[in-house]
């Protein structure tokens, strides 16, 4: 009995080990957050300053899909928005996108890893703020653009260079203070 008990002890320490690892991780995260190095809401992207990557999307009715070639010879800057119907912040963001569309901003949406039915539900519930729509069922375009989740938005200028990136939903202050000035700058 006593021998059995000793033999089983390492396994019984497993829950403690999980907790300690998780705890140390959280301490480090909080430390980084304190020093401003970690922000759960900030997502960097390495493509800013570079041309649009090679990618293609399938049709997502009413949109016909688009690819990297469509970013050549633009007459105006384009806001590329990755979204999905299963993503709560994407629903939250939709009214703001509609407002931007009403201001004449071209928004090209890429529907990430979504089902057709759910996608139509999204458009029905939140309206369609998108000038063009592409479907990215297996996430190939998402990988090409280096996104880490949805929603994410990119501003592409007329030369097809990515000028700005936002990981997470757009908010009125971001639109007013950052996006609108950039749109004017690259118009």
């Amino acid at each position, binding site marked *: 009995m006593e021998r059995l008990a000793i033999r089983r002890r390492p396994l019984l320490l497993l829950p403690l080990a999980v907790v300690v690892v998780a705890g140390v991780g959280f301490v480090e*995260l*909080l430390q980084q957050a304190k020093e401003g190095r*970690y922000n759960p809401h900030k997502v960097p992207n390495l493509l800013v300053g570079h041309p649009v990557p090679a990618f293609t999307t399938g049709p997502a009715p009413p949109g016909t899909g688009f690819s990297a070639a469509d970013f050549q010879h633009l007459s105006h800057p384009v806001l590329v928005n990755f979204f999905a119907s299963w993503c*709560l912040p994407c629903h*939250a963001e939709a009214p703001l996108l509609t407002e931007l569309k009403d201001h004449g901003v071209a928004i090209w949406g890429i529907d990430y890893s979504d089902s057709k039915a759910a996608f139509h539900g999204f458009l029905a519930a939140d309206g369609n703020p998108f000038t063009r729509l592409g479907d990215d069922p297996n996430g190939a375009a998402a990988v090409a653009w280096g996104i880490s989740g*949805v929603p994410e938005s990119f501003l592409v200028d007329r030369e097809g260079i990515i000028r700005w990136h936002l990981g997470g939903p757009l908010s009125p202050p971001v639109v007013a203070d950052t996006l609108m000035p950039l749109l004017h700058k690259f118009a």
Partner: protein
Amino acid sequence: MIPELGNFALALACCLAAAQAVLLLLGAERRDARLMAMAPGLAFGQLIAIATSFAALAWSNAISDFSVQNVAAFSQSQAPLFYKLTGTWGNHDGSILLWCLVLAICGATVGAFGANLPATLRARVIGVMGAVAAGFLLFALTASNPFTRLSPPPMQGQGMNPLLQDPALAIHPPILYLGYVGFSVPFAFAIAALLERRVDAAWGRWVRPWALTSWCFLTCGIALGSWWAYYDLGWGGFWFWDPVENSSLLPWLTGTALLHSAIVVEKRESLKVWSVLLAIVTFSLSLSGTFLTRSGILNSVHAFAVAPTRGLFILALLGLVIVPSLLLFAFRAPILAPAGLFAPVSREGAIVLNNILLCSIAAVVFTGTLYPPFAALVAGEQLSVGAPFFNSTVLPLAIPLVLAMSLGPTLSWKRAALFPALLRLWWVALAAAAVGIIVALGWHGLAALGFAGSTWLILGAIRDIAARVRLFRLPLSESLSRLAGVPLGAIGAAIAHAGLGVTIAGISGMTFAAQRVVFLHPGQATDFAGYHWALTALDHVPGPDFNAEVATLPASRDGRIVAVLHPADHTFPVQGTDVTDTAIRTNLVVDLYTALGAVHDGGAEVRLRYDPLAPWIWLGALVMAAGGGLSLADRRLRVGAPARRPSLPSPPGGGRRPARAAG
């Protein structure tokens, strides 16, 4: 004066909690009957002190005493009294106080109902709860004191989060906390058992009602949160796999596992180590769920401000509770040898399967929730794990769980034969398959799976009770008289299992939901989902602390008005935010759901939804909780029922037996 009284009562409660921990744990260790006899008194004293403190904060909120910083920051004088009161726990500091109050209530309840517990066990349980309370009360006193004064006091408060001005969300925290904190009692029993070096059938019987009560509240709390997301956020979704939602689901999953494994401890004296671990894990997850979400470290739509300093403090506190518990577990658990053996195919075996599956689901949800922040830490890249991950990983685990839920109750204890058990379920399986095939042919594959599972669960539950009363095998009158003899616990279990079936049917029904967005001027109408929706009026209505645009939208079918819906859009000038107020008409089978979008040019964007079976999602949760409540009424579960077995001698090598001190 009142806030100072509250602050003093808080400090007093902290001292009493510390005394409760030190005196009782020491008393139990030394078998000092006088010290151990103080348990109920200390627990009640602590409750009275915290209740006074909480009442003081509620009073400050009710009279809008803006010299209290907490009230000034989160309240305002024009808010309705009900929301002023519920606003007491609508912020971080107040919610910690509520958390401590619920913990004190649990401690006092153990004190009140624990008269027939062995004196050392009772002292240790209440002592452990005192230790946890002392830590959190110290935190409330020092790091998040709700009674801090402002000088000079502002004329007006900064206002209440408009989203919180909602009846469901206002009562959501207390119910959820009753669930979360209730699991502190099984936790305290687990620690006390490890200190006592023994877990026996009686332990299982004492723990089960507590786990069951907490589980009922947690079920209701989660359902309430999900219902709020459905009707308030205005997107028609009910579960988003958001970190905050997941952190309430995790203790529910392990708590459900504990509920079942404790039965095996009670009936068969097996799964002891596992049940003790589940009790510790469930409370640890409850603690993390309550507090880590508030550190803002998890990227959630339920925006909590990132507060690293407070987060570190909370983390240290969690560490002080969880690490020693698991350390004690690692060293003492081998002593708890199982007594009853059982075959893989048996009631115990089914419960083991249930535990494995529930804990696997919990592990998947845990991983998916913590993966993004830890990936950021290790690989330095940010990503988010969304609904596709959770849906595709939880579903394969949920299918065998649902299958086992109807099969388990047909198996006998110790050893059972699988084939006769399956035969007993033949008509249930046939009905489930028929429903599945009909739905699959007519509509949708995934919904077919859901409806088949739901039929399997509900009919399985009915079969269980029918078999117990030998329905149709005996005359009906005799069956009915037998029903009175069926233990309430068995009826409760059947109802709870059927409740999950109802919820699954509701979730499956949502796949047939339809939605449309139209822009209507007053006088215009649209046809959708078989109903005629007319916008007859759009009125501007000023409220106490908001302005509202209220639409009048009668929905009619075949020329007859079925419902008059009033979706509204509230603007809160103090906070500068908009809140949509959806209008839902339900007949408990179908929801007609309307929300108001942008209002401009004298017209309004109206969102219409037709959600078949949606109410069943939350109705099912209520049925589950009701089943749990019914089980609680079972006299076998009541502590001190005459069925209590004489305690067994401790296993060889199991250390000393605790002396039964007179108390």
